[in-house]
């Protein structure tokens, strides 16, 4: 009886997520073409760099906790693993971005710095290969996470995550302005990716596996810690660029900090994305109270999306253009992630709930 009801629920939710996905894709295709063509493609990119670290990071978090000998994850472990459901969609979206690269990629058909690093075909081939390699490593780790070699596998996955997401950050985000460079940008990208992932993991867990007060406390602390770490990574880039005031470096900062309306967005991000948890999640009560923690996670997930938008779009437009292109592509990504996670939970029970093979 109960199982039947559960099944009904799963089917219902699958249909809802699936419809969101289809509606998103359809509206996004309609928004293509015309004046806003490049913007619609960039919206796809924004969501790609939001959802890929989010889902990949959820798996990596399981490895991070395991590698640091943490044993507190419990039911959060299978939940984190379901992030792997996004493996195939993320690769397909990257292929789609490749297909449309002539519409949005700044390096398309141009030769920068007289070296072929930003050659469009080479760029997408290596990024696709890297992303596929990451997901293969992730599944390899998932299958080994209860064996004797688990610590080694976890370590490998973390290293591969850092390397692959550094490459994606340099190629898909930093290269949007090919004249600009920052050696720390890759690290900023994978650290902020883990920040997004732990926030998402916490948010989803509050609705699904319902962690107890101590786990909520731990999750809250991790969000807190990673917000500070992300802020540190931001400040380490901002300070040398601000200080030296070189045109080749400030070209990233100036559109974001010196001109309204992006300046307003920057202040919003400083207040919520970077320093928000420092104030909002300071007390034990804030970390342990379900509704409050959920609310903060929700706000953070929204500003995290804004941060990705800010990373990409501020290099291209002075005005804030937010419309159907952004909403529909977000819906497409969210829909496929939601559908994937539900189906993964349903069909991959043997992967999710492995017993200790030790």
């Amino acid at each position, binding site marked *: 009886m109960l199982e039947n009801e559960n099944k009904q629920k799963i089917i219902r939710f699958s249909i809802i997520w699936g419809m969101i996905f289809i509606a998103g894709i359809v509206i996004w295709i309609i928004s293509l073409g015309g004046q806003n063509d490049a913007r619609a493609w960039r919206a796809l990119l924004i969501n790609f760099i939001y959802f890929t670290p989010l889902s990949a990071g959820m798996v990596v978090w399981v490895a991070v906790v395991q590698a640091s*000998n943490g044993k507190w994850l419990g039911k959060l472990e299978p939940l984190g693993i379901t992030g792997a459901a996004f493996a195939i969609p993320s690769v397909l979206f990257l292929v789609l971005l490749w297909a449309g690269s002539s519409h949005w990629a700044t390096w398309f058909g141009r030769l920068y*710095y007289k070296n072929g690093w930003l050659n469009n075909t080479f760029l997408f081939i290596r990024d696709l290969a890297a992303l596929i390699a990451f997901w293969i490593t992730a599944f390899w780790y998932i299958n080994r996470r209860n064996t004797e070699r688990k610590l080694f596998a976890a370590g490998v996955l973390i290293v591969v995550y850092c390397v692959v997401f550094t490459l994606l950050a340099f190629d898909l985000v930093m290269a949007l302005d090919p004249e600009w460079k920052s*050696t720390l940008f890759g690290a900023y990208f994978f650290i902020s990716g883990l920040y997004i992932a732990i926030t998402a993991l916490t948010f989803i867990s509050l609705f699904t596996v319902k962690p107890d007060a101590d786990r909520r406390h731990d999750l809250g602390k991790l969000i807190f810690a990673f917000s500070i770490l992300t802020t540190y990574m931001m400040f*380490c880039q901002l300070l*040398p660029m601000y200080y030296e005031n070189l045109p080749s470096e400030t070209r990233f900062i100036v559109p974001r900090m010196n001109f309204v309306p992006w300046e307003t967005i920057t202040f919003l991000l400083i207040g919520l994305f970077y320093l928000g948890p420092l104030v909002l999640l300071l007390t034990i009560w804030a970390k342990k109270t379900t509704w409050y923690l959920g609310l903060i996670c929700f706000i953070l997930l929204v500003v995290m999306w804004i941060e990705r938008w800010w990373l990409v779009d501020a290099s291209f437009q002075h005005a804030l253009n937010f419309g159907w292109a952004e909403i529909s592509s977000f819906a497409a990504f969210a829909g496929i992630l939601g559908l994937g996670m539900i189906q993964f939970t349903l069909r991959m029970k043997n992967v999710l709930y492995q017993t200790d093979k030790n």
Partner: protein
Amino acid sequence: MKSEYSKELTLKEVNDDVLSASKPPIPLYYFFIAFLALVVVWGLFAWIYQVRRGMGVAGLSHPVGWGVYIANFVFWVGIAHSGTLISAILFLVRAKFRDAVSRSAEAMTIFAVMTAGLFPLMHLGRLWIFYYIMPYPNERELWPNFLSPLVWDFLAVSTYFTVSLIFWYVGMIPDLASGRDRFTKLLGPDHIKTRVYRALALGWSGAESQWRHYGRSYLYFAALATPLVISVHSVVSWDFAMGLLPGWHETIFAPYFVAGAIHSGLAMVLTLLIPLRKIFKLEKLMTIKHFEMVAKTMLVTGGILGYTYVIEPAMAFYSGDKFESQFMNFEQTGWVAWVYYLIIICNFFIPMLFIFKKFRRNFLYLFIISLVVNLGMWLERVMIVAASTAHDFLPHNWGKYTPSWVEISITAASLAFFLMWFLIFSKTLPTVPMADYKEQLVEGEGFKPEPPPKKRIVPISIKGKTKVMAIFSSHEHFLKSVKKVYEAGYHVVEAFSPLKIKEVSDILHKPKSPVRIWTLIGAILGIVSGYTLAIATANTNKLIVGGKPPTAPIPYTIVGFEMLILFGTLATLIGLLYHSRLYKKRIHPYYDPRFSKDKYGILIACESNELNDLREVVLSENAEEFNVRE
């Protein structure tokens, strides 16, 4: 199940093992101290020579104006990092292997900062004008330039020294009390050692009313020290990254320096503690497991260094920047190339051997690899400091640098200075945090009672009541007994224990420690006054320095941040001393010296006619003694 790191120890053994390390030393020890002192004196002579003859006696000359002195400064600040890493960060993430090594690592921090602090003075030449860097109101209205990385350095390093010292000392208070009680018994109350320990222990009695505030404060110290340790080496890195030179002006510099600092610091922990555990017979306390975890942590820091070694040339290639790529070319093929490759081998490839169990679990390998990493990290600092200045934008400005005998003497003396302090420390103070270690031992007993429902205990005044001291040697029985006595409605005046037991405060429904208010107010006050100081002093003369307006919030963040940590820590310390009454030298009147070793005590107040009932309650939990006082 007992903790995997320390299987067969009792509380008493921890006490005896640690404190007997401070028996009078063997002659070889004096010989070592004398030898190190001799090297220090030689270095001091070289320094005086440099002061008298001028900076020309150092190898510093155009174009290399920053040489081994600055490299040594960076290196020693780096060594200082592992102490706080092991103590604070590992405390926050509840890593158990920390306890065996944290005290020595913290001591290392203090001595390394002391060593590091000397080098800016040496580099300054005219060291007597050092006070110019301090912000104090003077009649000429000259203030330090808070836009200068050198002022940030001063703020960061002095904050770091203060906070590390407080963290180290506060962590030691319960152990100093153990020492006090042991030496009172062995050497008599008037022996110099007893008196020093008594003064330093500040009347610590291990009472619940002290542990409650102590536990909270220690947590806050750790929470404040963690971002501080990261900020300190970031600030040191910005001494370089704020410059325009290729090889210096990199956004990755701050995390790269922090990782390198922790890497070298952990290597130094291995270098010092592997001989120490043998010499002072601490083998039972510091096991291979602890050292293996240090090695594993070095895999992470080494990995970050490796990441940077790849990113830097990759970015020089990517950007196509002429100056970046010619500098990279110089590093990889010029006369410094041998150092460049040696650094990568020493700091990345060799510590990566720790992936294999064989290398992590063998003291000899650990020791050798730690020496290699120390060397590699020192060379890296020299390389960063000197190579960029030797090879800047204009080819006719390129030059070479070789350290002079003065610089080499002073460098050698700095190592001797550091080791000498460490040797003195290891003979005089407890080298292992006993209270933390004991906590780990009882944790295995796995007894965590649910706090009973809150009770209203009537007798607020204990005057005229009969007081009973019940003494236990079992952690579990002690806790159960506290609970029973409380539930039976007696007034538990105080509970004593040799280690921090959070559960006692829960059972007795004690309010949360107010220390957190102190910390919060201190931190807010600190950040506000940091920004205010920087903005107000810059606006005194309203000069545009380096193209920056007088009110420049981005760089002043560093000033605000360092003051936040400094004030937050000082306020926490004041709160701790005030609430746990540590400013009173007198120990609790019912204190028993065994409480600092391995016994637990409960002080209960009751009416004289209740004594028999109380005795029954307490004895049912295997109390060893039941002493009626007055």
